[in-house]
C-alpha cells in the first residue's frame, strides 16, 4: 500500500470511529429522551393494580403487560422446542458425526442460518395453509405456530455455539476419558458436557435474544395488537417487538407515542441483558480452557 493509500485508510478509520458511535448515540438518545418519562408502573399495567394484572384477574388494555407476558411465553415455548434438536445436533456434529455427514449437515445449518426471518414466517404460513387443507381445517395462526418457526430461526445459533463450545475443549479432556476407561458416551456425558456447560448455556441465551427481538416471523404467524394475556398455545398473542412495530404507525395521541418509545427501551434492555449474560458465560469458559489449550 502506498502513502496516499495509508492516509485514505487513516481517514476512513477516523470517520468510522466518529460516525458510527455518533449515529448509535443519536438513535438511542432519541429513545431515552422521548421514552424515559413514560417508564413507570403505568407503562406496564395501565392503571390496573399490579397484582390483579399479573394474575390476569383484571385485563390490561393501556399497558404493555400482555405484550411482556406474550414475549415471555413465546420465548419459553420456543426454547422448549429448539433446545433438544439444537444442542443434540451440536453435540452430534462436534463428537460423533462422520466427516461426510459433517460437511453436508454443516452446510444445511449455514443455509438455515441465512434464511431471512420473513421467509421463515412465510414457511409457517404455508404450513398453516397445508394443515387447513388436510387434517385440521380449524387451524389458525397461534402461539404454537410462531414458536415453531422461531425455533427453526434460532436452531442454527444453538447448534453452532454448542459445537464451538465442545470443539474448543482441549484434547487433554478426551484423553482423560479414554484413560479412565470410559466409553464414548460416558466421556461426553461426564467430562465434555460439564466442562463446556457454560458455553452451551451462553448459546442458549444468545438464541433467546434472537427469538425475543424477531418481529417478521411473528408478524405472519400469530402476533396481534390486542389479544390480552396469551390464553393458550393455540390462541393469538401480543409481543413486545410487534407492539413496537404497530405503535410506530398506529398511535392515537402523544401519550401512546411516548409509551411506544418506552416499550422500545424495555425491549432493548431485555436484548442487551441476554447478550451480556451470554458473553459473560462464554468468557469464563474461554478463560478456563484457553491457557491450557496452547500446551497441546
Amino acid at each position, binding site marked *: *500500500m502506498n502513502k496516499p493509500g495509508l492516509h485514505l*485508510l487513516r481517514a*476512513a*478509520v477516523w470517520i*468510522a*470511529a466518529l460516525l*458510527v458511535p455518533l449515529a*448509535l448515540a*443519536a*438513535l438511542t438518545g*432519541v*429513545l431515552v429522551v422521548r421514552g424515559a418519562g413514560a417508564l413507570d408502573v403505568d407503562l406496564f399495567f395501565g392503571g390496573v393494580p399490579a397484582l390483579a394484572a399479573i394474575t390476569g384477574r383484571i385485563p390490561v388494555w393501556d399497558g404493555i403487560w400482555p405484550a411482556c407476558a406474550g414475549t415471555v411465553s413465546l420465548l419459553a415455548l420456543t426454547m422448549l422446542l429448539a433446545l433438544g*434438536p*439444537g*444442542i*443434540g*445436533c451440536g*453435540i*452430534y*456434529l462436534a463428537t*460423533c458425526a462422520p466427516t461426510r*455427514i*459433517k460437511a*453436508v*449437515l*454443516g452446510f*444445511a*445449518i*449455514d*443455509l*438455515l*442460518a*441465512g*434464511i*431471512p426471518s*420473513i*421467509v*421463515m414466517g*412465510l*414457511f409457517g404460513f*404455508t404450513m398453516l*395453509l397445508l394443515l387447513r387443507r388436510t387434517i385440521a381445517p380449524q387451524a389458525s395462526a397461534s402461539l404454537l405456530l410462531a414458536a415453531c418457526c422461531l425455533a427453526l430461526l434460532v436452531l*442454527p445459533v444453538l447448534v453452532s455455539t454448542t*459445537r464451538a463450545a465442545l470443539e474448543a475443549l482441549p484434547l487433554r479432556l478426551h484423553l482423560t476419558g479414554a484413560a479412565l476407561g470410559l*466409553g*464414548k*458416551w460416558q466421556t*461426553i456425558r461426564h467430562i465434555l458436557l460439564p466442562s463446556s456447560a457454560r458455553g452451551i448455556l451462553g448459546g442458549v441465551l444468545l438464541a433467546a435474544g434472537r427469538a*425475543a*427481538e424477531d*418481529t*417478521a416471523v411473528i*408478524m*405472519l404467524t400469530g402476533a396481534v395488537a390486542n389479544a390480552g394475556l396469551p390464553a393458550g398455545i393455540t390462541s393469538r398473542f401480543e409481543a413486545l*417487538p410487534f407492539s413496537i412495530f404497530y*405503535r410506530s404507525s398506529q398511535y392515537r395521541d402523544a401519550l401512546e407515542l411516548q409509551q411506544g418509545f418506552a416499550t*422500545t427501551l424495555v*425491549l432493548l434492555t431485555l*436484548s442487551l441483558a*441476554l447478550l451480556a449474560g451470554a458473553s459473560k458465560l462464554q468468557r469464563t469458559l474461554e478463560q478456563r480452557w484457553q491457557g491450557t489449550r496452547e500446551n497441546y
Partner: protein
Amino acid sequence: MHFRKGCMAEAGLTASALITGTAVAAIFIFLFLFALPVFTGGQGLAILSGEWSPFKGQYGILPMLAASLCVALSALAIGWPLALGLCCGIRGFLPRPLGRALLVMLRGMTAFPTVVYGFAAFFLLVPIMREALGRGSGLNWATASLVLALVILPTMALVMDAGMRQTEKSLRLTGAALGFTREQTLAHLVLPACRKSLFAAAALGFGRAVGDTLIPLMLAGNAPQWPAMASDSIRTLTAHIGLVLATDSNSAAYGSVFVAGCLLLLVNVAVQLSLRFCLKTGKTE
C-alpha cells in the same frame, strides 16, 4: 447397561441431527411447491414481468427484486467501508482503550433489535430526510439504506475482526522483523493477507441486508415501482411478503408472495455458496 445407554444417546443425537436436516429441506420444498402453481397456472412467466398493477391484473415482482438488490447494495456500499474502518481502528490505528471500547460497542450492537432501529429512525431520521429533500414523506431508498447499513455493520465488522485477529497473530513477528509499526504491519501485511474474510464479511452483510424486513417495511415507503433515484419510495421483496400477508388482500396476489420467498431463498443459497468458497470452514458466524 452402560452400553445400551450409549446406544440410546447416540440414537438421540442422530435423531436431532436428522430433525434439523429435515427442517431445512422442508422449508425449501414447501416454498417451491407453493410457488409452482403460479408458473403452471396459466399465467406462465407473467409473475416475472416488470409491472405491479393489481387493477390491471398484472402481478410482476421484478420491481421488488430490483428494490431489494438496490437497497442491499447501497447499504453495503455505506456499511462495508465503515466496518473496515472500525476494524482497522480496533486492530492498530487507534489507541488500545479506544479500540477496546469500539469492540464492546460492536458486540452490543449485535443485540439491538431491528425494530428498535426502525422505530428510532422513523422519528429521528425520517423528518430530517423530509426536510433535506423538501418533498415527499422522507420514507425512501436513502433512509432505508442508511439505517440498514447500521444494522448490518456489527456482523460485518466482527467477521472482519475475527479474520484480522487470526492473521495478525501469525504476521506480528514478520512485521517486527521488517521494522514496521503496528499500523504499518496492518496496512501492508495483514490487510492483503485477509482479503478473503473481508469478502466474506461483504457477502454476509449483503445476505443480512437482503433478508431484513422491518427496516424497508418501516422506512422505505413501500411503493411498488422501479427504483430510480435515492429519493424514490420503494418496496423490497421482504416488505412485499409482509404487506400482502398482513393485509389479507386478494388471493391473486398470494402467488407472488411465494415466488418472492423463493427468490429470497435463492439469494441466500448464492450468498452461502460464495461464503463457502471464500472461508472453507464449516462454521456459521
